[in-house]
């Protein structure tokens, strides 16, 4: 053993000038590995790469300090389970990263230890899309994962998280985006004809044919962003031109509750724009929307000049705050909401929402370079 050690010392050729002395009072430091992340509510930021590891950075909601990260494959998406104790990624591993056969993988991570729990290989038709809240979802009971496919024909892969296997591929022709129901195993999707469709788990343990709504929106004249946010037993969608569509998904078939514009009558041709353009706070029943002025055909991805607070019931604008060029928002629930904004350059902003002062945003913290292309976040609890 000793001889091996000395041989190795010679191999590595290390000749430190000076030797270690026993300093009476010196106690050598000990290398360890942290077992758990720092406590407190988490913000999850997705940094998506198309030619390398995508990752989720986990930060403190309080001060945006970094608690750690998770890394996975290219064009990654993420979603958390209902209590934010598990984070799921969907990403893609080609044999040579950007070429060769692709393996698409759902990965389950434990949030408190940032450890990989397991992997489920899913059909490689899983959509490779920019960061989105519509591609990877978990059912209300944390039992199933839903994955949007595109070949470009569309379908949804259902993964049974109890068995860790693919349950079914559900065809969803002409529709895109997955939005699970709040109290049943069901998902709703948005279709190119302006209707919504719901697919429910039937008694036979399979998802059968869809239950369809009437036409809810006009995809030509007032297309909705596929950014559906849960508000109780409703799903909220905002259109390119600033209409809030409230869609009930608590019955068998989805149904329009109301459709109201929050831009009508406003000067300056304001419109929503960006990526994850809407965040919803439950306590105040308020939407926050990334807004830009002088909208034109094709400006719907432009970053915000302002964030507007919009009342869910009335679609009245309760407040407008100037912001840097934000493209995505997430917000905490509760009476004192904290809003998180991301721009396209990897800057993350934290705002305290002044609910009693017209929902004005007070910037409290920022992180630069939170990712190379970090434009999607989830505010956990």
């Amino acid at each position: 053993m000793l001889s091996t050690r000395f041989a190795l010392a010679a191999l590595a050729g290390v000749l430190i000038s000076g030797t270690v002395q026993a300093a009476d009072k010196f106690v050598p430091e000990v290398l360890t590995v942290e077992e758990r992340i720092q406590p407190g509510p988490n913000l999850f930021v997705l940094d998506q790469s198309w030619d390398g590891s995508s990752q989720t950075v986990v930060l403190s909601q309080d001060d945006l300090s970094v608690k750690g990260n998770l890394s996975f494959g290219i064009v990654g998406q993420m979603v958390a389970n209902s209590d934010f104790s598990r984070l799921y990624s969907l990403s893609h591993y080609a044999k040579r990263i950007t070429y060769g056969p692709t393996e698409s993988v759902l990965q389950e991570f434990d949030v408190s230890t940032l450890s990989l729990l397991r992997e489920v290989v899913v059909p490689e038709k899983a959509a490779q899309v920019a960061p989105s809240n519509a591609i990877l979802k978990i059912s209300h009971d944390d039992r199933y994962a839903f994955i949007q496919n595109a070949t470009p024909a569309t379908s949804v892969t259902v993964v049974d998280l109890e068995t860790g296997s693919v349950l079914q591929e559900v065809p969803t022709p002409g529709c895109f985006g997955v939005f699970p129901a709040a109290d049943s195993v069901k998902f709703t999707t948005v279709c190119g004809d302006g209707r919504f469709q719901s697919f429910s788990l039937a008694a036979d343990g399979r998802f059968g044919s869809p239950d369809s709504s009437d036409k809810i929106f006009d995809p030509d004249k007032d297309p909705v962003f596929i950014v559906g946010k849960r508000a109780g037993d409703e799903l909220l969608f905002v259109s390119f031109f600033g209409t809030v569509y409230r869609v009930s998904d608590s019955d068998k078939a989805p149904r329009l509750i109301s459709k109201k514009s929050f831009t009508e009558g406003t000067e300056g041709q304001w419109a929503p724009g960006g990526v994850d353009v809407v965040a919803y706070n439950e306590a105040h029943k308020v939407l926050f929307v990334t807004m830009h002025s002088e909208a034109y055909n094709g400006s719907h991805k432009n970053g915000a000049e302002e964030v507007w607070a919009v009342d869910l019931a009335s679609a009245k604008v309760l407040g407008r705050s100037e912001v840097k060029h934000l493209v995505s928002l997430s917000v905490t629930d509760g009476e004192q909401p904290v809003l998180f904004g991301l721009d396209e350059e990897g800057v993350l902003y934290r705002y305290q929402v002044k609910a009693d002062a017209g929902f004005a945003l007070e910037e409290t913290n920022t992180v630069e370079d939170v990712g190379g292309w970090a434009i999607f976040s989830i505010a956990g609890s």
Partner: protein
Amino acid sequence: MPRMIDRLFNLIDKTSEQSTRKAAQSFGRRSFLAKAGTVMAGAMLAPVLPFDRSLGGAAFAGTLEDENDCSYWKHCALDGNLCSTSGGSLTSCPPGTEASKVAWVGTCRNPADDKDYLVSYNDCCGRATVPSSTFCFTSEGERPGYRMGLHNDINWCMANTNKGYHCTVSVVLGVANG
């Protein structure tokens, strides 16, 4: 069924006049938003960003002729890196890459004759993007995935075996009759 789809979309590649025009009506494909630095480079070049009013009408007109500029008319719904700055051209993939089997479609007005044209945006596939290539971020007539053929947030290398997004070409398929 997948084979059917492949066959159909392969028509776009072959670009025979008849089939292409019809196929172009039905399908689209598109690239993605690139990484940080490049995103902003592209954003700065985008024609009418409300956040950069320094680009006046004159500047805009002046760049119309440069096909490597994001304001070039054929790029009106192109969210991706220009192949013409990646070793290819406006209508050709760089050497060693492969053309995507499927594509998304834009409708762009040619300022020369004031007509609208259908533009097929094919991705070129199978390797990483060229870091110095020009990233464009325009979305005229773009729609989310429920109008898949107009959607440009998705990797249109999806139907290829080698799926790595490399760059995007703007291929004019025909005159659009508004």
